[in-house]
């Protein structure tokens, strides 16, 4: 499907927002959250640029599943490291093990449903973390209400990840054209929610 000029503008805006977040939005945090958020928004930025250059064809690459896993995992790790001190080590273990599992199951031919189960668990846990943690923290008044926007971003990234994963698995939930039609706007909305959430924390 051909990418329109509007798609490119939306992706460029996504990239600029991600670049802003990497440069300014995460200043003053600890080393691990800064690294985690830099990876998340950095991957988003580079992926956006590649989509602008190559069009939607880039989504045919097998690396898309791995890349779309890195973003939620890094974001979730950053949030847990910042706000759930007691869970830091186990969550870091989950992130490293989960990413390795996704890479292995996507690189080597593994029969059966294991690759899908691995993706579902890793995406599910990371997505729930990104959605629930900011929502609960802002509901409890520990952070400002605006922080809940990250939860909204989490929900959107979950939706995007789900659509892409099922598309890559050959069982798209909605037609491929519809996914490509909404993807640039979804990515921009998601990034805006994340950036705004961090800004209003």
């Amino acid at each position, binding site marked *: 499907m051909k990418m329109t000029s509007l798609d490119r503008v939306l992706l460029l805006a996504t990239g600029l927002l991600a670049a802003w977040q990497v440069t300014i939005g995460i200043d003053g945090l600890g080393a691990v959250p800064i690294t985690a958020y*830099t990876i998340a928004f950095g991957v988003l*930025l580079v992926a956006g640029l590649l989509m602008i250059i190559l069009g939607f064809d*880039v989504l045919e690459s097998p690396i898309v599943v791995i890349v779309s896993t890195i973003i939620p995992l890094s974001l979730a790790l950053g949030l847990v490291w910042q706000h759930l001190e007691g869970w830091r080590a186990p969550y870091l273990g989950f992130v490293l093990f989960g990413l390795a599992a996704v890479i292995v199951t996507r690189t080597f031919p593994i029969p059966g449903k294991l690759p899908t189960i691995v993706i579902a668990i890793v995406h599910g846990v990371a997505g729930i973390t990104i959605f629930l943690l900011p929502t609960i923290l802002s509901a409890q008044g520990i952070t400002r209400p605006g922080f809940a926007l990250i939860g909204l971003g989490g929900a959107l990234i979950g939706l995007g990840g789900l659509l892409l994963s099922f598309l890559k698995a050959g069982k798209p939930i909605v037609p491929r054209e519809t996914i490509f039609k909404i993807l640039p706007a979804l990515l921009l909305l998601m990034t805006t929610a994340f950036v705004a959430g961090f800004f209003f924390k």
Partner: protein
Amino acid sequence: MNTLTAKFRTYWPLIKATQTGLLLSTGIAGYMSAHTAPDMLVLLGMAASLFLSISGSTVLNMWWDRDIDMKMRRTQKRPTSSGAVSPEETLWLGLVLSLLGVGWAIAIDALYGLVVFAGLFFDVVVYSMWLKRRTCWGILWGGISGAMPILAGRVLAVGQIEIIGLLLAAAVLFWIPTHTLTFSIKFFDDYKAAGVPTFPSTYGLDVTRAVIALSSIIAAASIGTAGVMIGVQAGILRLMVVLSSGLLLLSFATVFRPSERVNFSLFKYASLYMLASMILLSI
């Protein structure tokens, strides 16, 4: 007035506006990288003299290479190949632009003018006239001349040739193969038809891809080191690391997963990378 506009429209493709603009942006970034309060008059003079010099050398190259351009499908429509501009007119235009540019540069600052002249000399005489048709290593000199605008900008700002200026020049020098070698892979047949030796035709595609990956690593390392030495903010450094990672990823992909699509994306990304890096170094 109409004649002037028509002339301008005919001449405009001779200066390769995108390439000239990119090189001009490196010169401005070199000047701004000193992070001193910029003298707007000097900055404007630098931009104008660089624009004229780069445009002049591009026009002279096009004049010299018109026979090659006629043989290559990609360049057959250039004004010098199609006959829209005569060789004599092209030569005069190139000389006038070059003399104006270098003269203005020397009037601004002697050392700055010398670096600008070196860029023009390496590009037109050493690269185009002497080496381009003899050896594929000619692109090294094309790269050195491409690195001169950023060095010139830095020299004008700090008054001397120092390590940061050389690192910035190295970054551009090693970025250029990423750009030109991917180009020579994409238009392999064109260059072969014109009899111009290139890395792919001399050493093969595998070696060329390895050179692209290696030069990308050196370019990214040079620009990163220069950024640290300039003292850019941590956030900007993070963004430079992110953008460099994208460049390295694509470079490795050209080696381990070579395809037309990867080659094209590296070619495009490398230009974006350089432009973004120049903006970041200027902030």
